[in-house]
């Protein structure tokens, strides 16, 4: 399955009344969901099973095409954010490039879960790069509403990690 085929599938699903489309091919699995009750031009949510390398869908030039489908970031896609995020919500973004970990060790509890309250300066996750583990601190105060990145997945600079409802 190449990128053009995936783009074509997304296009077809988004135009149809199909709400969920699942394709399994060996150990590749593609899930495309159309937002229930959404307008026909809303971006469909695309989820890839982890682990996936970071991918940016490349629309053919001349860019930027007006009807570009969701830009895929490491799973799960931040397009989910677009659908779920309220204008009031705050986002904790990654300050660096590396691998995201929810806890300080494989059998340790995660630093934060959905529902937890965080203060400014509270450690929310670890991002590891080149064997160095960096504790990432929250720059906002509030309640964790959503965790956007799966444990042990790659993250890039400025990538949204957590949605926080302000206190």
């Amino acid at each position, binding site marked *: 399955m190449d990128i053009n085929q995936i783009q074509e599938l997304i296009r077809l699903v988004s135009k149809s009344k199909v709400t969920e489309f699942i394709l399994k091919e060996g150990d590749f699995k593609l899930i495309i969901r159309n937002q229930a009750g959404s307008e026909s031009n809303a971006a469909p949510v695309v989820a890839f099973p982890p682990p996936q390398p970071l*991918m940016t869908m490349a629309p053919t030039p001349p860019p930027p095409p007006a009807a570009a489908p969701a830009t895929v970031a490491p799973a799960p896609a931040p397009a989910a954010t677009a659908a779920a995020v309220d204008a009031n919500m705050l986002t904790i973004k990654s300050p660096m*490039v590396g691998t995201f970990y929810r806890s300080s060790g494989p059998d340790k509890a995660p630093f934060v879960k959905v529902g937890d309250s965080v203060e400014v300066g509270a450690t929310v996750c670890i991002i590891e790069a080149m064997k160095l583990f960096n504790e990432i601190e929250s720059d906002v105060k509030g309640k964790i509403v959503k965790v956007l990145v799966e444990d042990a997945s790659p993250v890039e600079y400025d990538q949204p990690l957590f949605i926080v409802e302000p206190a």
Partner: protein
Amino acid sequence: MFKKILIANRGEIALRIIRTCKEMGVKSVAIYSTADRDSLHVRFADEAVCIGPPASSESYLNIPRIMAAVEITNADAVHPGYGFLAENANFAEVCKEYGTKFIGPTPDQIRRMGDKITAKETMLAAGVPCIPGSEGLLEDVKTGIKLAKEIGYPVILKATAGGGGKGMRIVWKESEFENQWETARREAKAAFANDGIYMEKFIEEPRHIEIQVAGDQFGKACHLSERDCSIQRRHQKLVEESPSPFMTPELREKMGEAAIKACTAINYEGVGTVEFLVDKYRNFYFMEMNTRIQVEHTVTEEVIDFDLIKEQIKIAAGIPISGKNYFPEMHAIECRINAEDPFNDFRPSPGRITSFHSPKGHGVRVDTHVYGGYTIPPYYDSMIAKLIVRARTRDEAITKMERALDEFIVEGVKTTVPFHQRLMQNADFRKGNFHTGFLNTWDFKNA
């Protein structure tokens, strides 16, 4: 062959490298700062990683961030492009330690050619002609006069702590020497608090002619002939061409041989450029060696029909070069199109390009990362496109460049297109009558 190459650069060169990767079946990873989110290189690469905020120190010059991107994408090679970290021996060293192949020379080769004094020593030992001069500072007038007699007038006295033309004096004959020596010292002391002076032969009507070279991991080296880059403004190249209108087959052979000597002296790995100054008598002198791919590599590609980026990648992957030398079969000229206002002292003109139409047609090549609707960020250099034409003769190439420049429409920002249009019409340029001082004396605004 590599499976995945991370391009540690941006703009048109990143795109250039990605294109060759695609042709070679190698995956490409683009890195970008938040200011470059909409850049073409991000869209064309197979994968893209945002590594930092706009400032180069936090992104394209930031080794830890770049290595983190190498780590999470599992790139097995890194292409540094030109500028940024391309000639940073430390970065090459870090890549080596990490185990990802730096597409370029070894850290040691970068260091040896990066230091002007070491480079000159290496070249002299290899039998490559260098600008004759004093070795270090001149003790006194007597030593100076003696040396000047050996080197031959004219000579130039230069402040060792100097720059910006201060503390520099040309001496045309022995009777002037003492006077110019005193003036240079006084000026140097006033400007830099250091009156140390050294001397070099003054190259009359110097042309900047460089030789493209390639060396593999097995000790073989070759040259791909010259590019004339004499049209410069404040030491920045604006126009490059091949073959040089000043070249002769004999001179090309001698310069080519010297360039190959420079490579074999250090066992050079990769593609590179040996820059020479050529005086009006066709004596040539080593200036410096650039241990990377250059902006104007495109000119050589057009006259020899060769993919230099592909060659770089092959060399890095341990594939030997043919060992043949290559000679221009056509004539090519490149104009660097910068987002600058040529009528206002070439002031940079970043901003949103509202309309962009680049020239096309037979013998026209445009390497660019911009498009209509793109906003040029103010954080990086101002070059937005390279316009290269190729034709059978130099006259035809100039005519084609004029036609192409007339078709080049960029709205929303100022560009140097009008400057190039006037240059193409200039009589001296058309005759091939120019050296590096050309733009100092040509008042193009009233051309």
